[in-house]
C-alpha cells in the first residue's frame, strides 16, 4: 500500500479509529459504508501520526468544501498539479 508501515482500521487504537470514523462521516455522511471503504490509502499513510492525519483531513475539508471556487475548478487545478508532479494516485 505504501513504502512505510501504515495502520489499518482493524489494527487501529481507539484514537485512530475515531479519526477514521470522522473521515467516513465527512465523506459519505450517514450512508452505512464500512469504515474501511472510506479510509483511503492517501489518508492511511499518515496513520503513524494520528494528530497529523486529523489535521490533513480538516485541511482537505477546508480546501475542497469551503470557499468560492466551483467543484470543476478545484478538480481541474488538482488534476493539473497531479499530472505535473507525475502522481498517479
Amino acid at each position, binding site marked *: 500500500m505504501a513504502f512505510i508501515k501504515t495502520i489499518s482500521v482493524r489494527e487501529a487504537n481507539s484514537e485512530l479509529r475515531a479519526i477514521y470514523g470522522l473521515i467516513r462521516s465527512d465523506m459519505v455522511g450517514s450512508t452505512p459504508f464500512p469504515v474501511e471503504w472510506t479510509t483511503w490509502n492517501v489518508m492511511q499513510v499518515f496513520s503513524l501520526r494520528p494528530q497529523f492525519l486529523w489535521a490533513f483531513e480538516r*485541511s482537505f475539508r477546508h480546501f475542497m468544501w469551503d470557499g468560492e471556487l466551483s467543484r470543476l475548478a478545484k478538480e481541474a487545478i488538482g488534476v493539473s498539479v497531479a499530472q*505535473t*508532479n507525475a502522481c498517479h*494516485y
Partner: protein
Amino acid sequence: MSARLTRIFENDPLAAPLAPDLRAFVALSVKVTARPQEVTPEDVRAAFSAAMSPRQYLDAAGVMIAFNFITRVANALGVEPEIPAWMRRFEPLRQLGLRAMALFLRLFVNLDRKEVHGPTPSEHVAALRTLFIDLRLGDLPGWVERLSFAPPLLAALRELLEALVRRDSATGTIGIDTNRFMAIGQTVLQSIPNAETLTRLADNWQLAPRSEEDTKRTALITRFANDVALRSYTLTRERIDELRAANLDDAEILDVVVTAALWSAAARLEVLTSSLPALDPSDENARAAVAPNTDRQSAEVAATTDSQAQSALREELTV
C-alpha cells in the same frame, strides 16, 4: 469532472477547453508546480485579474498548494491507488479500476459546499505567530497575515504546521527535531529563492553543531528531502530503506516527507500571494489596485464567457 475532460488533463492540462479564469488558474498551477522559481509577480497578477474575486484567487491558490503537498507525499511514500495489485499490473485493467473508483467517488462522496467552523482568522494568525516564536523563527511574514482574507487557507496552514511540530496537543510542546526541520527547510528553499521571506528566515537559522555521524545522517535526510521537493516521482522503496539504515523509524521518515512537502507548499504559497496588495474583505478596490484594467464590467464579461464556455463544454461532453 467528466472522464473525457480528465483524460485531456492527464495528457496536457494546458490543452483543456476552459473558461478564461479557469485557464489562468490551470496555467499558474502548472507553472508553480513545475517551476516555482520562474513564477513572476506578473504571472500572479494575470491569474488574480482573471479571478472573479480576491477570495476566489486565494481559494485557487489553496487548492494548488494542497495538491502540491499531497502529490509529493503520495509519490515519495509510494501510496498506491485503492485497486487490487493484479489490476494495477495491466494498464487497461488499471484504467478500469481507476474509473470504477472515480465513479464511486462521484456517486457516494458528498462534495457539496459545507461550512467548516473553527477559530477566527485573527486567532489563526495569533497561533501562527506564537508557533514562529516557539520555533525561534522570528516574526511572522506579512504575506501570512494577508491570508486572513481566505480563512480556509489560513486554517489549513496553521493546523498542518501545528500538527507537525507540536506533538502534544494538550501542552503544545514542540516535539519535532527543530534542527532537522530547519535543515530540510533550507534545502527545499534553495530551489525556490523567490519565496524571499521564507528563504531569508531559513538562511538566518543557525544549525546546531553535531557529531560526524549526525552530520552524515542529516546530509542523507536533506538529500532525500530535496528529491521530495524537486522530483518526488523518482523516489523508490530503496531510498526509504536507506533512511531506515540510518536509524530512522517509519514515523520519522513520515516526518521527513511531510516536512519537505510542507516547506515546498509554503514556499509556493508565498510565491502565489506575496505580490498581492493588502486585502480586506470589505475592500473590493484591492483587486483594482493590482489589476487596474479589470473593472466590474470586464468581470461581468468574464463571468458571461465563463458561463458560456462551461455550457459549451457541458454540451460537447454530453454529445
